[in-house]
């Protein structure tokens, strides 16, 4: 009985705490005793080859997948393994998918409006009226993601990069404490990549951010602590220069 209490104790000062998390699908270990700690206000980049368990890790944190074993704590005390997606989102964990996922038949404005922190229950939304404060907040976010002039466009008509930003804007609207961002610059032009890095660094000033990314150029641009995943567990951790010099990392990932 002392083991869970101990890990709970360790989780106390962290924002996100994963300890010994394992998930297997039909015998394949997607996560193998993964342990990871994110401090409040930290930005962390996570890299790793395909199948290293990056997306499964996000699924576990956001409640989509339940771990077979291990502890997942948010803000030190909240056990995320007992909650569903909606309640985890309400706690303040926002997630951006690998493929930009926005509501295509809604306007840009409505996409942000839906994501805005606030009412979530069916009856509350039925009678909800958008307040002046909410309108101001939506306009502020639209300015941040540079989509103010496209606010009446259907999201379906946005370019790939603009959809990625819209999705980041939706994350901001949720006012999360922790953002999980899965491959934000996949398919972006170089200019868009640089802008996205600047946008994420701006966001990281007030929030914790976990970025999963393949693009080394982008990771270097972020200039944060890097965790390398391999076969469902942490292979190496440190600055990008430190992990790049790690012989095990070179062997499984960067060397290839």
């Amino acid at each position, binding site marked *: 009985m002392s083991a869970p209490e101990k890990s709970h104790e360790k989780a106390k000062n962290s924002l996100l705490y994963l300890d010994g998390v394992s998930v297997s699908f039909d015998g394949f270990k997607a996560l193998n005793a993964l342990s990871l700690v994110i401090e409040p206000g930290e930005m962390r980049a996570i890299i790793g080859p395909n199948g290293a368990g990056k997306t499964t890790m996000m699924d576990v944190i956001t409640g989509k997948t339940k771990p077979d074993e291990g502890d997942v704590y948010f803000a030190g005390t909240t056990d995320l393994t007992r909650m569903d997606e909606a309640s985890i989102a309400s706690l303040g964990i926002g997630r951006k998918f690998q493929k930009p996922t926005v509501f295509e038949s809604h306007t840009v404005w409505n996409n942000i409006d839906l994501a805005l922190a606030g009412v979530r229950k069916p009856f509350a939304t039925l009678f*909800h009226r958008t307040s002046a404060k909410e309108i101001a907040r939506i306009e502020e976010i639209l300015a941040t993601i540079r989509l103010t002039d496209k606010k009446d466009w259907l999201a379906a008509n946005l370019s790939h990069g603009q959809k990625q930003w819209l999705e980041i804007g939706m994350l901001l609207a949720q006012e999360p404490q922790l953002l999980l961002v899965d491959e934000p610059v996949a398919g972006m032009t170089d200019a868009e990549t640089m802008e996205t890095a600047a946008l994420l660094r701006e966001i990281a000033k007030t929030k914790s951010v976990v970025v999963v990314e393949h693009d080394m150029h982008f990771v270097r641009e972020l200039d944060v602590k890097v965790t390398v995943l391999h076969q469902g567990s942490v292979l190496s951790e440190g600055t990008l220069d430190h992990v790049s010099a790690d012989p095990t990392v070179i062997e499984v990932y960067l060397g290839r």
Partner: protein
Amino acid sequence: MITAFFFRALDGKTWAVLAVLLGIGIALPLLSLTDPSFPLHVPTYVVALVGKYLCYALLALSVDLVWGYCGILSLGHAAFFALGGYAMGMYLMRQIGTRGVYANPILPDFMVFLNWTKLPWFWHGFDMFWFAAIMVLLVPGLLAFVFGWFAFRSRVTGVYLSIITQAMTYALLLAFFRNDMGFGGNNGLTDFKDILGFNIQAPETRGVLFFASAFALALGFLICRAVIASKFGKVLIAVRDAESRTRFIGYRVEGYKLFVFVLSAMMAGVAGSLYVPQIGIINPGEFAPANSIEAVIWVAVGGRGTLIGPIVGALLVNFGKTWFTSGVLAEYWLFVLGGLFIAVTLFLPKGVVGTLMARARKKPDETKAPGALSPIEASQAAEEGA
């Protein structure tokens, strides 16, 4: 709060639809009561026919609410329609009283025929109209709640959900066919005499029933518009487009689906309850899976996700059906219906109304030209901004 809720829905288009529906609801019965020599006289059978179409239109509207806006393709909505119909039919049966063949003041004829001596417990209360009216909403609503609670919690979606809705209506079909279910078995409920004390065959009563159908359709349309115009409606469309995204934003999707599914089932129940007194019979055939599929076709033809579309689609297809099946081409109706479904899917994927609406929307947009930038233009614009 409630007034504000409905007020938001009342744009020009909604007013127009409400005015047309209520206008028809009043004009047609009045014209049918005129002297046959009057040039605008409407024969009684037209009132009965259009009244039936209006009930179908309300069923189609209820299908559109769940399918068009929340992506739940229900292939079992006729079950809710039939349950509403049975609730009304039970009231009408109990109004027959001693005028039945066996002249039993309590038991309907089929029960006497089956040598039953006591009214089954679930027939109690149906001698009162208000009780039956509540059951018209409650029974379909409750079935939808229980069904939806299990299905949506288990995250059954797409084709699997459609299949189990078919299974649900088929199971009810088989159950209601059995004599010992207590709903008249194969023959169903028929031979109604009067409703609220008025002769059900009288042209005046038929006129009022017609108006009630038009009114129910108008009210259903207004409720749907209000739901869609609210933030709730935006969440529904979000669920349809990207369900897991909606979850990760923090909405508990199953609650939304359940609410809209129950609302839709209740609307279908009301449609069935107005259908039965106008048709004069309800039997297990109404549960037939083909009926539910036909309702989906009406919605597809008219235009999914438009609310006006399903009304237009139900009226058009059923008018076509009446016209076709009353001539020598009667045998080919199902081929026509199937062909229509394929043609609409191929050439008018947005349906009749959806296509017209898209065309009307395109016109002013061309002058403003805020249309889609190509990805190349967009990235150029982004580079310029950087």
